[in-house]
């Protein structure tokens, strides 16, 4: 259920960033969600669509990248994707590993496109 709040935060960032790029409008926002971030991508998409429908951001696309759980081996320093929570390093077998990824909840990028001339004239009036 907290996906609604997360979508709201994403749209706030989009609006703040969009103000810095005059003459353009936000077209696509890229978001990274870690496997263990406790955020449901479908619920986030639903909230995002509900919050943008019939607003100035109606045409904004949401791109979600899912980031797998990743550990780093303290012995060989190798970083590996964790399958089924098995913590040992698949390369050297060491048990001493630490979590270095999979908890992401990040806005990676915003794509802006030139505003159509008619829209620009309208907004100037």
């Amino acid at each position, binding site marked *: 259920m907290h996906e609604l709040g997360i979508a709201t935060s994403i749209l706030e960032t989009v609006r703040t960033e969009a103000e810095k790029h005059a003459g353009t409008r936000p077209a696509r926002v890229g978001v990274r969600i870690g496997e*263990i971030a406790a955020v449901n991508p479908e619920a986030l998409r639903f909230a995002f669509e509900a919050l943008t429908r019939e607003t100035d951001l109606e045409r904004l696309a949401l791109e979600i990248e899912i980031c797998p759980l990743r550990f780093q081996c303290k012995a060989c320093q190798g970083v590996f994707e964790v399958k089924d929570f098995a913590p040992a390093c698949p390369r050297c077998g060491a048990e001493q590993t630490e979590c270095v990824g999979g908890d992401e909840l990040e806005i990676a*990028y915003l794509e802006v496109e030139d505003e159509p001339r008619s829209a620009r004239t309208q907004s100037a009036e």
Partner: protein
Amino acid sequence: MNRVPLERKVLSENDRIAGELRDRFRVHGVLCLNLISSPGSGKTTLLERTLEGFDQNDRVAVLTGDIQTDNDAARLQRYGFPVKQITTGGTCHLDARMIERALADWPLENLDLLLIENVGNLVCPASYDLGEAAKIVLLSVTEGEDKPLKYPSIFFKSALLVVTKIDLLPYVPFDLAAAEANARHVHPKIDIVKVSCTAGAGMPDWRDWLDKRRAQTPAEHVTPRG
């Protein structure tokens, strides 16, 4: 089309406040613990029995979160320690700003232990850092032993699993060994204690865990105590 890299955390504002709270807790030597579970797993009852075991020299306080009502605060206030209810009005988790607001008129130098009872929910509270030293997840034996596999995030992020209501084990088809194995499958280093708040079984183990963590939390500026 022009791509602007942002590389920004969605909850950066929450994380910023949580970081400030964590600094304040460290300076004052306050151990802050964030208790998370499904509704009805026994967070409030565990806190009641815990407060009952402290004496008035223990510098303990509780923040308790719910969507509506101050029933939990009323239950917890009976033990003579500072208790404050946070009513979220619909939000399914506590966030760092709610904690910051609730602590505004509580001098942290008077505290050693702050127990936060999150809103009953096994999913959303996992995403919100409250500045705590550790998350604690509760699982009651009337739930399924596969909960750690169904909701891995919170078990992965918690330092301790408290299995509650173990006095009911003879009456429910709950496989305790499987529950522990499932929790350790997701998080091999998780500590586990098993308690019955009504019969008292396991409560010394929980208190030992708390006392060990409290002993590891010295204040950076030791204030003289009268």
